[in-house]
C-alpha cells in the first residue's frame, strides 16, 4: 500500500524535509500511515473498496470528508476527515479581548449562533461573579428558544431531504426564515447575531420584534403539528429511520454525546436542568426523553422540543420584568484570574467553554466544547454494517454543524 517516498525540502519552510506529495492517482493515503488505527483502516481485504464522500457533498452538512470502506453496499468502516473549516477560533480568542470573543465565536454554530456566542459571555460572567439584569436574562432565553426552534425546524427538513423528500425542507425553511427575520429585527442580523454582551444584551426588544413574535406565536403551534403530521407516519420516512443508527445508553454516555442523540437513549441530561443557568429554573418545561435510541427517536425528540420551546417563549413573554438590559461594567473589562466552566444547552447538545483568565483583558485559554464534534464521533459505530445509502440518514439525524466541529 505505502511506499517510502523521497524526502525533499519543503517549499513552505526550507528547513523542513517533507515526503514528495502523492498524485491524485495514488491510493489513499498519500503519506505513510501515522497510527495503528490508520494503518488498519487503509488496509483493504478481498472485495473491499474505498469510497470518498465529500468534502463537498451536500448531505455532509458542511465541509466534511468521510472515507468509507465498503464491502458491496455494506459499510465496513469509515474515517471522517475534518479541518476544512478550521479557523483557530480558540487562538484568535486568546489574542483578542473578552468582547472580541463574542463575535469570534458567533460563526461556530452558524445555524444557531445565539448559543455559541453565549460561551464567552457566560464564562466571563462566571469569573466576574456578575449579576445580570433580569430583563436581560429573559430576553436571552427568548432569543435562545427562538433560535432553537429555527434550528430544529431546519433539522427536520434536512433529515427528510437527505432521505429524498423535498417538501419538508420548504416548510422548514419557511419557518426558519420567519424566525431569523424576527431575530434580525431584534439584533440587526439574520444569522450571526453578535447580540449577547457580557453583563446583558445589546438593546431592548422593539415593538416590531414583539408584533412579529406575537403573529408567529399564533401560528407556530399549528405549524409544528402540521410538520409532525406530514412526516411522523410517512411510510418511507419511518422505514428509513426506525431501527437505524441505534445507540444504547452506555455507548452514548461513553462517547460524550449530549443533546437529542443522548436523550433519545433515555438519559434525561439537559444542561438547562442539570446545571441551570440564566432564568431557566423559574420556567416550566419538560425534558422529552425516548428510549429507542434510533434515528426516528431523535427526530421525534426534535418535534417535542419545539413544543417545549414554544411553551418557554410563552412564559417568557408573560413573565418578562421591566428594567435595564445591561449591567454597569467598565469599558476595559479586566476579568479576575480563575477558571470557569460554563455550559448551555444548544439545539445539538451541551455547548461548553472552559475559560482560564490571568487577570488581563484577554482570556488566557478559551476552550470551546462543541456537541456536534462528540456526536459525530459516534457515527463510526452507528453506521458499521449499515447500507451505504443509510449513512446520510444516520448522519443527518445526529445534526452535525461543521462550523462548530472544525472551530
Amino acid at each position, binding site marked *: 500500500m505505502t511506499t517510502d517516498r523521497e524526502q525533499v525540502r519543503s517549499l513552505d519552510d526550507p528547513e523542513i524535509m517533507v515526503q514528495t506529495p502523492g498524485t491524485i492517482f495514488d491510493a489513499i493515503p498519500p503519506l505513510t500511515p501515522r497510527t495503528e488505527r490508520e494503518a488498519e483502516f487503509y488496509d483493504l481485504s478481498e472485495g473491499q473498496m474505498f469510497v470518498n464522500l465529500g468534502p463537498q457533498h451536500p448531505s455532509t452538512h458542511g465541509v466534511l470528508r468521510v472515507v468509507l470502506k465498503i464491502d458491496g453496499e455494506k459499510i465496513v468502516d469509515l474515517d471522517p476527515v475534518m479541518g476544512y473549516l478550521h479557523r483557530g477560533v480558540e487562538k484568535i480568542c486568546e489574542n483578542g479581548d473578552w468582547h472580541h470573543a463574542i463575535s469570534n465565536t458567533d460563526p461556530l454554530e452558524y445555524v444557531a449562533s445565539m448559543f455559541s456566542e453565549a460561551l464567552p459571555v457566560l464564562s466571563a460572567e462566571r469569573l466576574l461573579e456578575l449579576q445580570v439584569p433580569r430583563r436581560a436574562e429573559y430576553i436571552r432565553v427568548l432569543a435562545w428558544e427562538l433560535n432553537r426552534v429555527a434550528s430544529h425546524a431546519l433539522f427536520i427538513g434536512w433529515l427528510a431531504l437527505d432521505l429524498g423528500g423535498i417538501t419538508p425542507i420548504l416548510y422548514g425553511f419557511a419557518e426558519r426564515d420567519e424566525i431569523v427575520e424576527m431575530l434580525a429585527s431584534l439584533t440587526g442580523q439574520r444569522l450571526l447575531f453578535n447580540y449577547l454582551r457580557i453583563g446583558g444584551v445589546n438593546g431592548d426588544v422593539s415593538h416590531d420584534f414583539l408584533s412579529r413574535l406575537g403573529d408567529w406565536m399564533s401560528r407556530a403551534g399549528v405549524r409544528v403539528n402540521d410538520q409532525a403530521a406530514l412526516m411522523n407516519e410517512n411510510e418511507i420516512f419511518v422505514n428509513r429511520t426506525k431501527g437505524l443508527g441505534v445507540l444504547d445508553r452506555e455507548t452514548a454516555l461513553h*462517547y460524550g454525546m449530549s443533546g437529542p442523540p443522548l436523550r433519545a437513549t433515555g438519559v434525561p441530561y439537559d444542561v438547562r436542568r442539570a446545571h441551570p443557568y440564566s432564568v431557566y429554573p423559574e420556567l416550566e418545561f419538560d425534558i422529552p426523553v425516548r428510549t429507542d435510541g434510533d434515528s426516528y427517536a431523535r427526530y421525534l425528540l426534535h418535534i417535542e422540543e419545539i413544543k417545549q420551546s414554544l411553551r418557554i417563549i410563552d412564559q417568557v413573554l408573560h413573565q418578562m420584568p421591566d428594567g435595564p438590559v445591561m449591567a454597569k461594567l467598565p469599558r476595559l473589562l479586566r476579568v479576575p484570574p480563575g477558571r470557569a466552566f460554563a455550559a448551555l444547552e444548544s439545539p445539538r447538545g451541551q455547548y461548553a467553554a472552559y475559560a482560564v483568565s490571568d487577570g488581563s483583558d484577554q482570556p488566557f485559554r478559551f476552550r470551546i466544547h462543541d456537541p456536534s464534534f462528540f456526536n459525530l464521533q459516534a457515527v463510526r459505530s452507528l453506521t458499521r454494517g449499515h447500507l451505504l445509502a443509510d449513512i446520510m440518514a444516520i448522519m443527518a439525524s445526529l445534526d452535525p454543524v461543521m462550523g462548530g466541529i472544525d472551530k
Partner: protein
Amino acid sequence: MLNTIDDRLGERLVVPPELMGDTIELVVRPRDLSDVMRTLRDDGDLRFELMADLCGVDTGLTMQVVYHLWSPLCSDWVRVIADGLSREDPRVPSMVHLWPGAEWAEREAYDMFGIEFEGNRDLRRIYMPPDYLAFPLRKDFALADDASRSPGAGIRPMERPVAPADVRAAPAIRTSAGTGALIGPDGERLEVGAGNAVRPAALESGEGAP
C-alpha cells in the same frame, strides 16, 4: 459528594478537592490519572459516566490536561486537572479505554498542544494538515501577523509606516504555513524578535524607505 470524593481519592490528590461555584476541582499527577478516573467512573457512589469535556492547557510553565465529568448523582461538575506535564515532552495516559469519546478530543489536544496520549491508537492530527509541524495553541506559538499586538512596524506590508510604492519595492516576507516561522525573500528563515516586530535588514538599512 465532596466528602465521598475526598474519602475515595484523598491520598492521590495533590491538593484537597475544592468546590469552585458548581465545579469540584481535583488536581492529580499524570501517573495517578488512570486510577483516579477509573474510580470516578466506576465507583457506585460517584458514577461520573459522561465526559463533558477534555482539553489541553498550556500555562506557559507546564502543560495540563483538563477533564470535566458529569454524574447523574451529583449536582456539580467534576474538573480533573492532570497538572505538571513537561512542556518539552508532555505525556499523559489516554482515557480512550474508559471513554471511547475521548479519542477525538485527545487527537485535538495532540494537534493543538503536542500532548502525547499513551494508549490512544489513533493519535494523529485532526484539524491541521498531516505535514504540519507546529502546535498552534502553545503559548510560544505567536501569531506573526496579529494586527492587535503589532507595534506598527509589523511584518505585514499594510502595517508598515511607509508609502505604498515603497511597499512594492520591499522584499517579500511571509509566514510559513506549516511551522509559523518567518521566511525571508530568498527562502531563508528569519529570527522572530520580541513583539513579533521583525524588520528585515534591507528595510533597516534604508533601502526602499522614503
